[in-house]
């Protein structure tokens, strides 16, 4: 049984059709990559899964519950987490506080207990701080834990965004171009973290990525979108051989030239 299944997703913005009839299934514990040329509808697809966009047609089923139409925070409660393409961290807060927002849903203190601080609010804060410190250690960002996020270098911000998503304790992690704009070393680190997240925590990963080397190396399944349609799907090897994919990326062979 698939953990996430999207069937026949159709999304329009006014007269523009961003997605037309996209269907795929992601099974528990795999790394699923969505690739495609610019403007193919990859981010729109991710937004439909996480609930920022509501498709006009089609269904999103997560762990055998129909989540189509649910607001983003409801989906987060059910175990989805995501990162954004253009970093969407809380820039005025420290790294720790950004991660503590990830624990928001797991905390139960109300306004008055928070305002009194001593007692339950402090105990809860410490308990979740310990969890957050575990993630900080896992992603090797101990030295910047007190820094204000807006002042950090790009590569670190990307890492903090992954950390914040992990702080939610998700079952499904949606990553929108986690390696974009990174140098070689940073990309290697990020790949290591994604693999480790997937293998040791057993978190299913759906990611959009342009770095084909990474996609072909680490993903179990690849889905290729072009102009809002799914043109191919399967293992990396299958996709690489697919004539539609070659056509979308490299263009058609001109019979006159050959």
């Amino acid at each position, binding site marked *: 049984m698939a953990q996430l299944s999207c069937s026949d997703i159709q999304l329009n913005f006014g007269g523009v059709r961003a997605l037309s009839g996209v269907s795929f299934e992601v099974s528990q514990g795999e790394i699923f990559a969505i690739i495609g040329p610019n403007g193919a509808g990859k981010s729109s697809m991710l937004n439909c899964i996480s609930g920022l966009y509501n498709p006009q047609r089609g269904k999103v089923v997560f762990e055998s519950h129909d989540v189509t139409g649910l607001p983003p925070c409801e989906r987060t409660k059910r175990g989805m987490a995501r990162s*954004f393409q253009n970093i969407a*961290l809380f820039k005025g*807060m420290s790294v720790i506080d950004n991660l503590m*927002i*990830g624990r928001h849903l797991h905390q139960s203190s109300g*306004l008055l207990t*928070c305002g009194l601080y001593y007692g339950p609010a402090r105990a809860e*804060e410490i308990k979740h701080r310990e969890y957050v410190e575990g993630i900080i250690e896992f992603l090797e960002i101990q030295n910047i834990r007190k820094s204000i996020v807006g002042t950090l270098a790009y590569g670190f911000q990307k890492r903090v965004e992954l950390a914040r998503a992990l702080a*939610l304790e998700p079952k499904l992690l949606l990553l929108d171009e986690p390696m974009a704009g990174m140098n070689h070393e940073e990309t290697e680190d990020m790949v290591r973290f994604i693999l480790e997240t997937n293998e040791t925590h057993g978190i299913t990963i759906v990611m959009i990525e342009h770095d084909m080397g990474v996609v072909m190396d680490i993903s179990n399944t690849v889905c290729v979108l072009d102009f809002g349609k799914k043109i191919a799907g399967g293992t990396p090897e299958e996709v690489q051989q697919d004539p539609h994919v070659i056509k979308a990326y490299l263009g058609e062979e001109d019979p006159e030239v050959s």
Partner: protein
Amino acid sequence: MRCGDFKTTYAADMTIFESGNARIMLGLFFCLLFTLPLYVPGYLLDIINRIGIAVIGAIGLNILTGFTGQISLGNAAFMAIGAFSCGYLGTKFELPFYLCIPLAGLIAAFSGMFVGIPSLRIKGLYLAMATLAAHFIVEFLVVKWESVTGGVAGLSIPSPKIGNFVFDSDAKLFFLIFIIAIMSVLFAKNIFRTKVGKAFIAIRDQAISAEVMGVNILKYKLLSFGISSFYVGVAGALIAYQAKIISPETFPITVAIDYLGMIIIGGLGSILGSIYGAIFITLLPELLRMGTSSLAGSFPELVNKLAAMKELVFGLLVIIFLIFEPSGMAARWHSIKNYWKLYPFSH
């Protein structure tokens, strides 16, 4: 010499005052503060009391505008609501002040939450306009709803009392105001080191990703309006007790703008900044008055002209701070402190 942070528990990492020195300084400050009425003359004490009230109001506005990012021009209105509810409860139902003040805060909080409902859809300047509308509606109500507010004639407020002890002088009110002010500061500090306050800041910085992280935007925006208006309402109630007579003219729109000036000059999104701003803006007209009266001997014709200077200086200061220190006095203080902390080994 202190040369770094060595903490062994997370609780120690979350304390407000990190070092023993800071706590000793704070203790000394409180000793000094609470003995002020013994040796400070009445006129100065009146100003100090107004500072205490401004601190409460400025923190309230900062919670909403500085921390949650919702611009409000309605705080004079919520202050009026707090003041008149306090007066009405105190005169008509003869409730004691220790019930009047929190009830006035609660009434202001509910009005604030009502005004805050549009904030889910509108933001920035448009929200400022909506809250400005709230200000004029309240101003109109205060004038017209004579049975509750006393209309243009105003409402006279009985002095607060416990048993036979009446807070009838500035010195006695001082203790009432500053105990409430300290409680307000502490409560606000606690909010921002726990779940609720972090959610507020998250909404300010990135509303969409806050929602994706599971923060209920509507609930927390309204909560922010509620807490903010509670603070402002309590400040209004204290103004009523201090002024003894309140009328529609006590809470003009310029009060709302003064408070915005406080948090901009003090520091948006900083509790300490609200305190600095409140002190500064309350003292500003007094300092100007002292300046002009000392010049009155040599330039008598200048005095009348300088009377209008308050607005001018206020506007100029806000502009200067926005250009040169947009994070306010709190940030400036922080950088000065950091410079001296490791002086002369600043690396």
